[in-house]
């Protein structure tokens, strides 16, 4: 079924059809035939959809997301530690849809046809003038011997996509007996959220210190060193969790045995844990891979600087974790910043206007205790045809944790503001 406007409204259901077509975006109803389709309702997709509508209310925007709600990965390590509720991290799409006249389609994209400029979902096809995809990450399960994509994460949770996996890991840590061992295993970079593994070590160790003080946490890092904010995390572990955390760099896991909760590292015997948080190597979300949007590395999507248009398929823009965006880390704030620039340039291209060079920032907070956070931040601009961090800007929090209590307070507002921007 080709999804023309009428069918699409039918598909959305009668209730959705009465959604206002425009919000504060303006009074002009979108003109049929100028449509941007956005795939993925996370940090990138929601913002891209919103900003396209804000900048040009005459463009129809359809946001396709398979879940009714989005659960933020940022701050989900605090849920595992029991100091935050999932409800703090969960947003819906109703207000965004109503305020900006975005059509939300709760469906899964099964294919993209770049030649026909059509997106195929379980319920039909939708044509687009330009497509923005923000599909996040998926895992390269096939590189791990013994890993069954269906059953292994139920025993060895990755918890690297927030939601059920987060709660599963939390439950496992809470059920573990005092004196047990938690293992976190991280793949080689690039992966989503560079400071994430080290924050998670802090948060789980904090829980163990308080509730199960005889327990241990082993962080098996495939990388030769801590990937983000190394000096700060090292100091946090030394200061607060010295007897709990053991950090083992250059330990790449190639085989797992879920039955015995054992990880096998090249050149080392199997390491067994009571709770095993195994995070597999990553790549762009499945739809980007199956649509041929990944580059020579077969994992990530090469894009043109500033427009984020795929260098492989015209009229398809890739943002967020899935995209290769120069020096920017794969982070929620990065996706937010990229989405805004992408939306501005998509609107410019659709109106025959000149595009603009990228400018944006990234700010990531990591909790180290219940009352202290650290941060990494940077400003990004275009230089020599790539996105680079502006020289002498950005960096980490002070090493003496003198700002950590205040940063904890500011981190809370980061979460509130970024989720509000995505959902209203």
């Amino acid at each position, binding site marked *: 079924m080709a999804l023309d406007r009428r069918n699409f409204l039918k598909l959305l259901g009668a209730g959705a059809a009465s959604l206002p077509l425009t919000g504060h975006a303006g009074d002009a109803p979108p003109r049929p035939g100028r449509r941007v389709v956005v795939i993925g309702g996370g940090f990138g997709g929601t913002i891209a959809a919103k*900003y396209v509508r804000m900048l040009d209310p005459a463009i129809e925007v359809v946001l396709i997301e398979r879940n009714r709600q989005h659960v933020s990965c940022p701050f989900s390590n605090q849920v595992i530690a029991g100091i935050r509720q999932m409800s703090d991290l969960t947003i819906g799409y109703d207000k965004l849809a109503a305020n900006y006249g975005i059509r939300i389609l709760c469906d899964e994209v099964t294919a993209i046809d770049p030649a026909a400029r059509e997106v195929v979902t379980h319920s039909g096809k939708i044509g687009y003038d330009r497509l923005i995809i923000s599909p996040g990450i998926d895992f390269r399960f096939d590189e791990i011997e013994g890993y069954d994509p269906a059953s292994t994460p139920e025993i060895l949770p990755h918890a690297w996509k927030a939601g059920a996996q987060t709660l599963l890991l939390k439950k496992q840590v809470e059920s573990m007996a005092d004196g047990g061992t938690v293992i976190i295993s991280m793949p080689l970079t690039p992966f989503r959220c560079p400071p994430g593994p080290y924050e998670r070590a802090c948060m789980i160790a904090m829980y163990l210190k308080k509730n199960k003080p005889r327990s241990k946490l082993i962080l098996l890092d495939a990388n030769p060193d801590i990937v983000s904010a190394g000096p700060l995390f090292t100091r946090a572990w030394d200061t607060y969790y010295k007897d709990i955390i053991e950090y083992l760099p250059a330990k790449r896991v190639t085989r797992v045995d879920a039955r015995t909760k054992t990880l096998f590292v090249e050149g080392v015997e199997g390491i067994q844990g009571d709770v095993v948080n195994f995070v597999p190597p990553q790549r762009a979300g499945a739809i980007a891979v199956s649509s041929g949007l990944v580059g020579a590395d077969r994992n990530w999507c090469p894009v*043109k600087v*500033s427009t984020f248009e795929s260098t492989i398929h015209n009229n398809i823009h890739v943002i967020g974790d899935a995209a290769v965006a120069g020096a920017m880390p794969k982070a929620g*704030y990065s996706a*937010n*910043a990229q989405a*805004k*620039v992408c939306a*501005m340039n998509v609107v410019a291209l659709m109106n025959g206007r*000149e*595009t*603009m*060079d*990228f*400018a*944006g*920032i990234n*700010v990531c907070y990591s909790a180290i205790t219940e009352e202290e956070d650290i*941060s990494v*931040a*940077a*400003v*990004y*601009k*275009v230089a020599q*045809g790539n996105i680079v*961090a*502006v020289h*002498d*800007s*950005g*960096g980490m*929090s002070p090493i003496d944790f003198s*700002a950590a209590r*205040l*940063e904890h*307070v*500011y981190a*809370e*507002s*980061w*979460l*509130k*503001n*970024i989720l*509000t*921007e995505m959902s209203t």
Partner: protein
Amino acid sequence: MAKKWYGTILAVGALALAASVQAAPPSAAMLANACGGCHGARGVSAGPSMPSLAGQPKAYFIVAMKRFRSGERPSTVMGRLAKGYTDADIEAMAAFFARQKPVPQNGPVDARLVEKGAAIYYKQCKYCHLDNGRLWRQIHQGQDYDKQCRNCHADYGPDTGDETPMIAGQWPKYLKIQMDAFKDGTRKMSKKKAKAMNALSPEDREAVANFYASQTAEVR
């Protein structure tokens, strides 16, 4: 023939290059949009410790950013970020946020503290933070800056002679953090401000923060 062919390739190559580099520099909106992740869309903050930037006077924004950049104003993240921007970037962002409609914070305020804060405000704050901390524009016009204004603006805008910041309608938590920073000396203040600020107990500061937070921001 071979030479002609070579020339064509060069011409096509130059065209392709021109097409790929033909992009305008970032606009004020693009620069400012990037702040939204922390400060809210259009600078309207939903986070209690994060100040709203929407409607903040241009001169105040410029001075704040430059002082973050130089380290003169203490910060956590802002100093690191401000270093990534040129004077022209900062001026463009300042103009963008000054144009946005200010929206007062929508969190709860404590009525008892508002009343107490109001009394303190009318006693010691109102001479500089005019009109309940809202923006003022005309009031100082025509006054002799050195005689009338320098005392109040010494902590931020003596060189510009521009407005005091808009603090009406800001989040009380943010205001309290800033007042605490003035009080403990991490943020510099003028003699006049110090005289007013040093007289305030922690509960007084909480009260003043609640008072300002209870006010609507002026719509220009």
